[in-house]
């Protein structure tokens, strides 16, 4: 049909036909061929339009799996996931014995989009399914650094997809032009490929939009293409941020970054001492950072018109003495986030103890933590009196050990 989308028309049906990401393809096929893989699920992550979904479809086609797909257009609450994914991963269809089909393959596209009330409990349901699955489970996401995906990541083999290279995109576009009998100027294909920023899908869409049958595609035609902006991850944001040469460059970078403002402030704060060895520069950079932090605080949840001042101050902090820049190893994610992660079990334990004591003593948990616990720690060290106290507060031996070994608050 003349009106077919070329993206669909030329979508590869076998793994070898997918352009780019050779390493990711190899790791994925090795996992799929492995009968007893160490991880029962795979999380493919990377920018859009680089072939994650195509790879899953091609693999299903090649290895004769039936795809059961759940994507962003489906509700992915606990109930919905259990209804669709549970039968797909626990039972074997009878047609497995009569047809070429090897079995089911569960594919959950855009898992980073599971959010809100509609998808409540979705991630936990997926985790349970992964633990009990008998069939391959594949997930795809653009951003795997999200907090909500952390428990999923532990159970999955992570496979990173990179943007596709310009020469590879040009070759793909040339191939399509030949099949569609379109004459072209090489520079036009170069422009489309460069403008796509590694996104094959958008490059093919641009080519389809610009080309007309019987007319040569010229470089002039591609002038209509707008430049595409891409989200930048934490690591890349920090890397470009500290290497920036002027304020304008830093502002534009911050505008494209998809990092949370608070995480970014913390990460910059952690890394500034590594960036500046001169104390005067360090003080100046910290001064701008603190002003950015003040404005971030003033924004709260509604005064977003102040965001420009956060960005401007951050940009000024980045542009302090740009000539002195030397590459260095970043601390990422922020130290505070890492510390919170490592101390989570301790904090949970302390909270449960505080809940018990606060109920018994009729005081708030905060008061328990700040006033009672330091004394309680000392009292528990006196063995004779400790037993009565432990019984009355109903503390377990684990909790007692935790309290006596507690060093600071």
């Amino acid at each position: 049909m003349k009106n077919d989308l070329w993206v669909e028309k030329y979508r590869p049906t076998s793994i070898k036909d997918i352009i780019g990401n050779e390493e990711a393809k190899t790791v994925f096929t090795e996992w799929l061929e492995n009968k007893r893989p160490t991880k029962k699920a795979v999380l493919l992550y990377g920018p859009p339009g680089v072939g994650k979904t195509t790879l899953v479809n091609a693999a299903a086609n090649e290895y004769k799996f039936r795809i059961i797909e759940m994507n962003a257009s489906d509700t992915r609450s606990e109930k919905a996931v259990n209804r669709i994914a549970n039968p797909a991963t626990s039972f074997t269809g009878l047609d497995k014995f009569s047809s070429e089909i090897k079995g089911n393959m569960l594919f959950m596209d855009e898992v980073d989009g599971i959010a809100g009330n509609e998808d409540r409990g979705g991630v936990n349901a997926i985790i349970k399914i992964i633990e009990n699955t008998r069939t391959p489970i594949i997930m795809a996401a653009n951003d795997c650094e999200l907090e909500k995906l952390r428990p999923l990541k532990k159970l999955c083999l992570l496979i990173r997809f990179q943007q596709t290279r310009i020469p590879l995109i040009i070759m793909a576009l040339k191939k399509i032009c030949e099949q569609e009998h379109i004459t072209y100027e090489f520079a036009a294909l170069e422009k489309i490929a460069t403008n796509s920023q590694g996104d094959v899908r958008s490059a093919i869409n641009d080519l389809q939009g610009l080309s007309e049958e019987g007319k040569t595609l010229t470089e002039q035609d591609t002038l209509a293409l707008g430049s595409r902006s891409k989200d930048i991850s934490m690591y890349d944001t920090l890397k470009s941020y500290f290497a920036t040469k002027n304020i304008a460059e830093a502002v534009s970078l911050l505008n494209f970054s998809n990092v949370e403002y608070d995480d970014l402030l913390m990460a910059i704060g952690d890394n500034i001492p590594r960036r500046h060895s001169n104390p005067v520069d360090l003080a100046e950079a910290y001064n701008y950072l603190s002003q950015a932090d003040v404005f971030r605080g003033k924004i709260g949840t509604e005064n977003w018109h102040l965001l420009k001042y956060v960005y401007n101050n951050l940009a000024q902090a980045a542009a302090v003495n740009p000539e002195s820049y030397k590459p260095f190893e970043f601390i990422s994610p922020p130290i505070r986030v890492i510390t919170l992660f490592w101390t989570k079990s301790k904090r949970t334990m302390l909270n449960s103890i505080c809940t018990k004591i606060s109920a018994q003593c009729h005081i708030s948990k905060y008061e328990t933590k700040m006033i009672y616990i330091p004394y309680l720690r000392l009292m528990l060290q006196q063995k004779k009196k400790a037993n009565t106290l432990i019984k009355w507060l109903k503390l377990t031996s684990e909790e007692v050990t935790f309290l006596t070994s507690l060093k600071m608050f």
Partner: protein
Amino acid sequence: MLLNKKGFKLPRVEKEKFITLIRLGLEYDNQKMLFSVKNYNNINQLRDTLQDILKSEISFTQTCNICNIDFGCSTCKYAKACPTKDLPFSCVCNQCLRPKKQIQQQLF
């Protein structure tokens, strides 16, 4: 400095640095005494660490999808605009990309 992804040598590094390299995805072959890239998930951090050890800019060799030769990104005219400096380790060399040359292998 151009490193062959299939095997390259590094100067002797401290134990902690070696552990970092292995965690970031390098593999060490004791017999050949060569490092190779096993995991590509942390390639950016890996490249930065290697640059820190070797004290110079590094890049990995690329294999041409069409003629199968190894080449460096420095010979590519799109190097500056390239969205991925290191991965994948396969691309198309300048000779194969020339406008008049016929596509010898089906890529798509």
